[in-house]
């Protein structure tokens, strides 16, 4: 009997890990669809970002109440992993509470802490459900979340609550059995939360208690394995990717726009033709800006997979606040959706062939892109170091440089700069008129 349970566990565990590995590899490939950029300078600053932004959740604390609740859920997640480790080892080895004899009197303290965290996670998730579905916080109810994204968020919260309740119920049954001196259930001492609920189970037979304990154990661990495999399809992938994303976060001042060396060179040759002789002609015509996911950088795609769809960016976006179509969150969701679509196609046919669609227009419209003021509010707000503006600017570059598509007023501005050295139609001779006036 025992050996069958162990075997079943090992099989379930193996399948879950394998499936997760396969999907993780797929996502890695999708991220690497993006063009290469080197983001390895200044490792000290990068590790600091990981500590502050990912572990420390610094940006979350821009909104302290939500930050505390989120911190419970997050700490619960991190620490409960220790408990899951015990469960996995128990499952494989057919043991029960493997760590209890090893840790002695420390064990119930540890489990007690986990239980308190489990209770806090439950409360946190419940409040988050209320904020989403009853209070209807604006940023959590904008229309780009219609359909799957909204259900996704709710599924996760409900699942977390269920998993935590299973854990607490399991412990309660375990304690009841310990108190009855059941031989398999070694006495660990009272747990801090489930201890209070033991009397509820007093009327049950030993068999029923064992049934509850085992049932919860299995549902808890299977639930966790299922959760693991749900992550890559969900915005909750951020619990993993927030860490690398913080490491690779932009270290440049936010106002700095990425340079385009190809254009730099071309203009240089134009201004100083004498340099041209020494230059080897360029091998191929470079692409300007981005039209689709492969034209973006891999960091842009990593950003997209890290996005939690929290909408802090959108809530701070001046364009969105004033009713424009632009939503930086949607830019990130679109990029992820398109990367998934391309990845799926590659998985099917081996390579990416034109499918008649592009990120630009099929997902993100010109109207959205045009509305951005490059104010960096979205970049400032994002708790997981995502830069929606970088994507917007690259798509704008494609529009203007590859398609010459710009509003008429911008075309006038361009030609004014070119001809008059100023964005307005003013004579360069008048540039110092104010000084002449002052000199009197």
């Amino acid at each position, binding site marked *: 009997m025992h050996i069958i349970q162990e075997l079943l566990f090992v099989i379930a565990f193996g399948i879950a890990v394998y499936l997760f590995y396969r999907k993780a590899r797929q996502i890695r490939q999708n991220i690497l669809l993006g063009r290469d950029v080197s983001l390895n300078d200044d490792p000290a600053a990068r590790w600091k970002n990981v500590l502050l932004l990912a572990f420390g959740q610094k940006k979350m604390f821009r909104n302290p109440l939500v930050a505390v609740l989120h911190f419970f859920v997050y700490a619960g997640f991190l620490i409960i992993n220790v408990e899951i480790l015990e469960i996995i080892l128990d499952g494989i080895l057919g043991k029960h509470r493997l760590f209890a004899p090893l840790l002695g009197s420390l064990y119930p303290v540890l489990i007690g802490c986990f239980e308190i965290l489990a209770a806090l996670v439950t409360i946190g998730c419940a409040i988050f459900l209320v904020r989403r579905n009853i209070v209807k916080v604006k940023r959590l109810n904008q229309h780009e979340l219609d359909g799957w994204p909204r259900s996704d968020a709710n599924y996760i919260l409900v699942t977390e609550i269920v998993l935590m309740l299973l854990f607490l119920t399991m412990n309660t049954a375990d304690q009841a059995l310990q108190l009855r001196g059941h031989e398999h259930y070694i006495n660990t001492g009272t747990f801090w939360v489930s201890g209070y609920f033991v009397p509820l189970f007093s009327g049950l037979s030993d068999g029923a208690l064992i049934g509850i304990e085992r049932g919860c154990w299995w549902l808890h661990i299977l639930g966790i394995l299922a959760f693991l495999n749900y992550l890559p399809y969900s915005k909750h992938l951020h619990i993993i990717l927030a860490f690398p994303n913080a490491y690779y976060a932009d270290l440049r001042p936010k106002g700095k726009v990425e340079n385009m060396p190809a254009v730099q060179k071309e203009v240089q040759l134009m201004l100083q033709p004498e340099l041209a002789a020494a230059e080897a002609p360029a091998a191929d015509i470079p692409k300007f800006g981005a039209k689709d996911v492969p034209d973006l950088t891999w960091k842009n795609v990593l950003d997209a997979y890290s996005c939690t769809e929290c909408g802090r960016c959108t809530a701070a976006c001046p364009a969105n606040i004033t009713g424009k179509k632009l939503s930086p969150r949607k830019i990130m969701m679109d990029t992820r959706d398109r990367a998934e679509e391309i990845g799926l196609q590659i998985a099917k046919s081996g390579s990416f062939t034109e499918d008649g669609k592009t990120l630009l227009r099929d997902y993100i419209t010109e109207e959205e892109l045009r509305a951005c003021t490059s104010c960096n509010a979205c970049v400032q707000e994002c708790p997981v170091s995502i830069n929606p503006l970088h994507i917007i600017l690259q798509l704008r570059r494609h529009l203007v440089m590859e398609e010459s598509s710009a509003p008429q*007023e911008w075309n006038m501005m361009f030609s004014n700069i070119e001809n008059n050295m100023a964005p307005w139609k003013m004579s360069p001779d008048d540039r110092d008129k104010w000084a002449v006036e002052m000199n009197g």
Partner: protein
Amino acid sequence: MQIKTMAEYFANGETPEILFWVGCAGSFDQRAQKITKAFATILDKVGVRFAILGKEESCTGDPARRAGNEFIFQMMAQNNIAVLNGYEVKKIVTACPHCFNTLRNEYPELGGHYEVIHHATYLQQLIDDGKIRMQESGSFKGRKITYHDSCYLGRANNIYEAPRKVLEALDAELVEMKRCKSNGLCCGAGGAQMFKEEEKGTTRINFERGREAVDTGASVIAANCPFCMTMLTDGVKEQGKEDNVQVLDIAEMIAQQMV
């Protein structure tokens, strides 16, 4: 006052302490010219030897780059850098956060390395050094002032305190808007939006910001950017408050009040 160009300094074999980068708005926009003149007056009063580029200055290329036209940006940038390097410029002060950001963050990798200072920081230094002194009972004393963080000085370059310090010197009562500092709301002009109509929405960004500024009850809205100036002035008008609420650049306020 005698405002000299870099060329004039150079011809005399002299070098000025700083180059005052005026920017297109500061040069051509009628309202912004007042800011330019105010800042030049301050420099002159404290005896800083400064030069302008005059007709040799061109657009930094900021709006072109942000609209997506990298070619025009590069043309402007490389020309400007050639001029600046030709005069061996070391230190640049500008009253425009967009010029400041581009000169400081984007020119170095194209070969233009300068110490670039925004006038808010420069004014703060002059005040700290005791070079600018204020009248005893200035006309801003005790008045409610609110300060609008420009995105390109604030979020883009993390400068939030210097302009506030400058306002403190006026002995006014600084009231913050609901969205300020790193939470600040854009005026709506950045990213080349200044040069086109806004996309369709429920309101305009500068109307939203104008409302927020007027709601503080301040009688002066302090700005540090010629584009914010235009946008906020418009936003105040939309509220019908142009007779009660002034929009002023910090340089104008200092120029008015210094002894």
